[in-house]
């Protein structure tokens, strides 16, 4: 009896394994008249929120736009419709890696769009390199971007590094301090994960060099939901500037807490989430003067047109940081395909060296990185406008001190 069971279980086991292996042997035949594009973005799990705001709507908007216009244009002038293969990576790198393998080796899609998040983009980089796909790593903020671009030459890093954003912020605050509008004390909090650490470790020396004193400098864990204690400490620190290297829940929570406790620093900066379209609602309509990471040239007609289109298609405007860049990366992809076709190597070379016309203006990558970025933005008159680099075209003038809540 017992032995019999054991044998059956082995049979069952080998059967399931066999079916697992043969399962992928049925290939999804890519038809010639379409281009298959695959992506595995988080629809569930902790990354779903970010992906749901920044990545997925733009992918869907772009595919819809392209297909409505008759498809992607090939070098020979023919048009091919986009066919999407979409998976959920469940916010787990383990699932993500396997899904990319699936897209590349079973579905054999023509192109793979990247997932949301720094960690996710890094996790797939070696695979993308191995399969030869170009990787438009948009939503990845890392100081090691140059290193990665060198390591995987078909990867493109398009959102800068933590130091860039920190330096941009310090620049904004220095100008205000030099003008005498704020004192040289700063209260800064940072979320304890790779992103927050990157920013704070870039910001500390930058603030010091600019002659600022960090009178409050603490990190808080992911998942913190109550910020009353932190904000009250920051309020009592005597700093005119409040800086948070934070994720959306923290950015929102700190805003609300600051408002309700009547904490009115002259400069109020938050990170991810500050450029989200829902932010003014969260700030109860008092977002004016709040600074955050990113920004767009709100006066540019292209951006305005993109915002309108996005609003119409998705139901709400895009976020004013990585959304436009995500969309721009897709436009770059489309233009590169029009110039060189679908050959991965040619495509990668073209993306790396070409110049493209996108919603964020004319784009040319430097060493596989997008450097022409907005580091700091600010809510002004209901729009999130870029304010730094101050010398870039389209930069708005910062409003410091921020009006009281």
């Amino acid at each position, binding site marked *: *009896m017992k*032995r019999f*069971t*054991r*044998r*059956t*279980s*082995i049979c*069952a*086991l*080998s059967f*399931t*394994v066999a*079916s*697992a*292996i043969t*399962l*992928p042997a049925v290939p999804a035949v890519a038809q010639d008249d379409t281009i298959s594009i695959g992506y595995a973005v988080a*629809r*569930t*799990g*902790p990354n779903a929120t970010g992906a749901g705001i920044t990545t997925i709507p733009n992918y869907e908007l772009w595919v819809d736009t392209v297909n409505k216009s008759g498809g992607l244009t090939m070098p020979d002038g023919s048009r091919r419709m986009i066919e999407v293969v*979409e*998976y*959920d990576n*469940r*916010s*787990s*790198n*383990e*699932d993500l*890696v*396997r*899904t990319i*393998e*699936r*897209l*590349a*080796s*079973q579905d054999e899609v023509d192109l793979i769009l990247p997932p949301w998040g*720094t*960690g996710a983009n*890094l*996790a797939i*980089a*070696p695979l993308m390199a191995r*399969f030869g796909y170009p990787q438009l790593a948009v939503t990845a903020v890392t100081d*090691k971007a140059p290193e990665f671009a060198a*390591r995987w030459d078909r990867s493109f890093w398009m959102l800068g590094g933590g130091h860039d954003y920190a330096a941009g912020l310090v620049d904004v605050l220095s100008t205000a301090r030099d003008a005498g509008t704020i004192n040289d004390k700063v209260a800064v909090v940072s979320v*304890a*994960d*790779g992103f*927050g*650490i990157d920013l704070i*470790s870039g910001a500390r020396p930058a603030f010091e060099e600019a002659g600022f004193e960090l009178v409050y400098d603490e*990190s808080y*864990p*992911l998942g913190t939901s109550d910020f009353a204690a932190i904000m009250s400490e920051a309020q009592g620190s005597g700093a005119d500037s409040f800086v948070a290297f934070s994720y959306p829940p923290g950015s929102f929570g700190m805003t609300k807490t600051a408002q309700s406790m009547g904490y009115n620093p002259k400069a109020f900066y938050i990170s991810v989430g500050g450029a989200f379209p829902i932010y003014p609602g969260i700030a109860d309509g008092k977002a004016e003067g709040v600074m955050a990471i990113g920004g767009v040239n709100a006066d540019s007609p292209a951006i305005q047109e993109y915002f309108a289109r996005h609003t119409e298609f998705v139901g709400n405007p895009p976020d004013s940081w990585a959304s436009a860049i995500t969309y721009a990366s897709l436009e770059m992809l489309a233009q590169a395909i029009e110039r060189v076709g679908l050959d991965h190597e040619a495509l990668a070379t073209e993306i790396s060296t070409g110049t493209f016309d996108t919603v964020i203006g004319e784009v040319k990558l430097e060493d596989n990185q997008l450097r022409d970025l907005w580091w700091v933005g600010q809510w002004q008159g209901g729009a999130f406008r870029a304010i730094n680099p101050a010398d870039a075209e389209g930069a708005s003038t910062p409003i410091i001190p921020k009006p009281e809540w």
Partner: protein
Amino acid sequence: MTKLIIPLLALVALAFAPNFVSAYGLGLLIGAATYVTLASAWALFSGHTHYVSLATVAFYGTGAYCMAVLNEALPYWAVLLCAGGIGATMAALVGLSTLRLQGVYFVIFSFGLAELVRQLITWYEVNVTGTLGRYIFLDISARDIYWQMLALGAATIALTAWIHRSRLGMALRVIGDDEAVAAHSGINLARVKLIAFVLSAVILTLAGAITSPRYVYVEPAIVFNPTVSFLTVIMALLGGANRLWGPALGAVPLFLVFEWLSTNFPDSYPIFMGLLFIGVVFLLPDGILAGIEKLRARRKVQS
């Protein structure tokens, strides 16, 4: 002897499998092998003792972190050795203090443990080393990872088989049936439970260390993903946690079902997963193998 030959042939076949499958097929094999290992290692301790541990990811994640921290400083095999040692030490400390907790208290404790480890590592990295994400740039192919995981899984099942025949396994089964009888028969409850817990933890830690190079980038929030703990439990229970092949039999189909669900119904995946979970509890409380046996016994009675 035939008992040994079939699994060995299967193992050899599985070892050659990468030659015949796509990269995705290999990814599936790695995933399946990982969960077979995790579920079997989990069952090694929990299967007979009925201690539902949700600390799987505490060890799995620690293993991954060891690899991330040490991969540049030490040769690969030494990192694995270290990971095993750290897992064992951690399990011994935890086991000594907690294996007297029973029922739901142990469940909650083990879940809290995973969270605590994650928070402490985060705090340490942020405040002491000043980096949180770590990179693993090792020249290890997916195939190597698969072979290592396959070997670890096979070793786990072999170890389980050996334990089932040993005094330790006998003691574990008695403890699961009736702790009082076990003690009055001369079994040292604390020691037996601790040994099994440590063995299980070492395997879990090694599994984490072996898979981590696949993700390149390691961060506490990524490697201490509680879903891993939950999946491990449900897989082992589905197959039958107190049988040698039960965890493997639960892990493989469930892994494939989840894969299929998440590729075909990405939006409603959690709903299916929830229903599946409830279904297992209601319909197969003792696992597939026990269900099959019951069915067969019933048929025997009828005929």
